[in-house]
């Protein structure tokens, strides 16, 4: 048995039993971060904070929300919004956070793409990140069902129908997912379960995996420089803090992270108090009606780009294109054949590829919101083709990239 001595302090007592000093070192003061990074590296922490906001506000919503097709709409729009003191606050925090979290996820992703942070040992960071994206998408979709408004119902109808696989006519699968021929009580209760338990659990697990995958390769830096963390951290610990290329995660980097988080939270609560409308679709303030489709069905803004890739084609090709768009980002580390781990602006053709991809996704997002007719249809069609073509071209343009 291990040998315990009489504790000299509470900390010593805990230290003997839980090794808190070692934990603090491993997780904080001796977890090394390169100095050559910028505010974009704080997005991960911003995401953690946003997730906590979702969790806390969700717990409060959960106290009054009723997962029943007769009462769900009223429990949200009347009980929570009017009766419960500060109920509106939790709902607005939850809605705004669900929307803003995707904005930050996209910034986080494109930062990774720009700096090549998915290569040379960082593949698992990228893959676990994409799994988080999928889990958050499922979380947002299942949450969107809960108020049981018109958009909830019809988005539920359209998205579950995707699983019929077009000409495969897997209607049985769709009915299995719904537990009914159309979205009804069984559908609402199971999506409620997914939203408040199963998917949040999966998200927590994936966050742990994402962080774990960062340990060995460490975070990238602005020049993609390969840092000898062993050597640089020794240098730091030996007193040459200025000369070392790294700093401690806690409290050095954390203090900068939290500075960005502070600015973000001001922006976030400005939205919550004064500009929450964008996160609450007006159509969803009508209770669900299975006999009336709203004039326009569109997903929340963060799904628009992939929705636009589905829309202009006939059903089977649309589904294939949509499936392609959903998975292709995961393969980025393998489709990018270039050995260069540097900022996109120093990578020749890839630089053009990067900016075109970013702009095209903004165009797809805009077209997804507009009615599917006339010139918008045409622009959407060509943007969708371009998206696919860019991914097909990626291995070729990166294969011939000059080493920098």
């Amino acid at each position, binding site marked *: 048995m291990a040998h315990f001595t009489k504790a000299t302090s509470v900390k010593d007592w805990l230290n003997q039993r839980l090794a808190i000093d070692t934990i603090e070192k491993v997780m904080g003061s001796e977890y090394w971060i390169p100095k050559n990074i910028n505010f974009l590296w704080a997005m991960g922490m911003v995401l953690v904070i946003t997730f906590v906001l979702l969790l806390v506000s969700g717990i409060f919503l959960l106290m009054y929300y009723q997962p029943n097709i007769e009462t769900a709409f009223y429990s949200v729009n009347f009980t929570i919004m009017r009766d419960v003191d500060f109920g509106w606050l939790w709902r607005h925090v939850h809605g705004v956070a669900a929307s803003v979290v995707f904005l930050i996820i996209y910034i986080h992703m494109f930062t990774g793409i720009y700096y090549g942070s998915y290569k040379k040992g960082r593949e698992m960071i990228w893959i676990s990140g994409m799994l988080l994206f999928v889990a958050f998408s499922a979380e947002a979709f299942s949450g969107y069902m809960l108020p049981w408004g018109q958009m909830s119902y019809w988005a539920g109808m*359209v998205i579950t129908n995707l699983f019929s696989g077009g000409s495969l006519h897997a209607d049985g699968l769709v009915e*299995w997912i719904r537990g009914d021929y159309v979205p009804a009580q069984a559908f609402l209760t199971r999506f409620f379960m997914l939203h408040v338990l199963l998917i949040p659990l999966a998200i927590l697990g994936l966050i742990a995996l994402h962080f774990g995958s960062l340990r060995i390769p460490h975070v990238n830096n602005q020049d993609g420089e390969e840092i000898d963390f062993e050597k640089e951290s020794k240098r730091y610990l030996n007193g040459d803090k200025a000369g070392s290329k790294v700093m401690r995660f806690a409290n050095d980097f954390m203090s900068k992270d939290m500075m960005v988080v502070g600015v973000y939270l001001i922006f976030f609560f400005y939205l919550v108090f004064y500009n929450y409308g964008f996160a609450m679709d007006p159509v969803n303030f009508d209770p669900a009606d*299975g*006999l009336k489709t709203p004039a326009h069905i569109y997903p929340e803004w963060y799904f628009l780009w992939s929705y636009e890739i589905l*829309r202009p*084609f*006939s059903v089977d090709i649309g589904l294939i294109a949509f499936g392609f768009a959903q998975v292709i980002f995961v393969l980025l580390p393998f489709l990018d054949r270039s050995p260069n781990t540097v900022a996109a602006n120093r990578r020749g053709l890839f630089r053009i590829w990067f900016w075109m991809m970013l702009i095209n996704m903004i165009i797809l997002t805009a077209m997804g919101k507009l009615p599917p007719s006339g010139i918008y249809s045409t622009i959407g069609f060509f943007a969708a083709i371009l998206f696919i073509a860019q991914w097909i071209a990626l291995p070729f343009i990166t294969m011939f990239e000059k080493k920098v």
Partner: protein
Amino acid sequence: MENNGRRGFMGKAFGAVAAVGAVGSLVAMKKSWDPLPSVKAAGFTTLDMTIYEENQLVTEKWRGKPIFVLKKTAEMVAKQTEKQKARDIIIGGSHYMVSIGLCTHLGCIPAYNATEQGFLCACHGGQFDFSGDVTKVPPPRGFDIPPFKIDGTKLVLGEAGPEYTKMKETGITL
């Protein structure tokens, strides 16, 4: 060595027990997600076909789904192609379009425009003519026709009569 053999055996024995358990739980989990018997048994809907007005779309309900009923005008019947006519349900000399009012693309309810005598699906821009046949993608086919049986001037939905069976066999509906 001997011990390793025993551990190996114990490992395999546990693996076998766990595999049986895992398959069993998966079956139970799959079945628990199935629609309930009460849902599947959802009954039949009987429509009185004499009450409808020409070129006025009425939406009925069957198994939670909207059912479009459109009584065709003489002019519509006259100008129909063979393909459009094949979808007709004829009761008491009148021609009706009766179909499940869900877009065959992803299930929105298209809206009927009586002047243009056609349907437009607002979700992704699909279009259908007055007989329920598709005229513009993304929907892959015309509206599906629910199982029906003609009973005098009444139409029973949910039961397959000879006219429906024929439509199904000739591939007019799925």
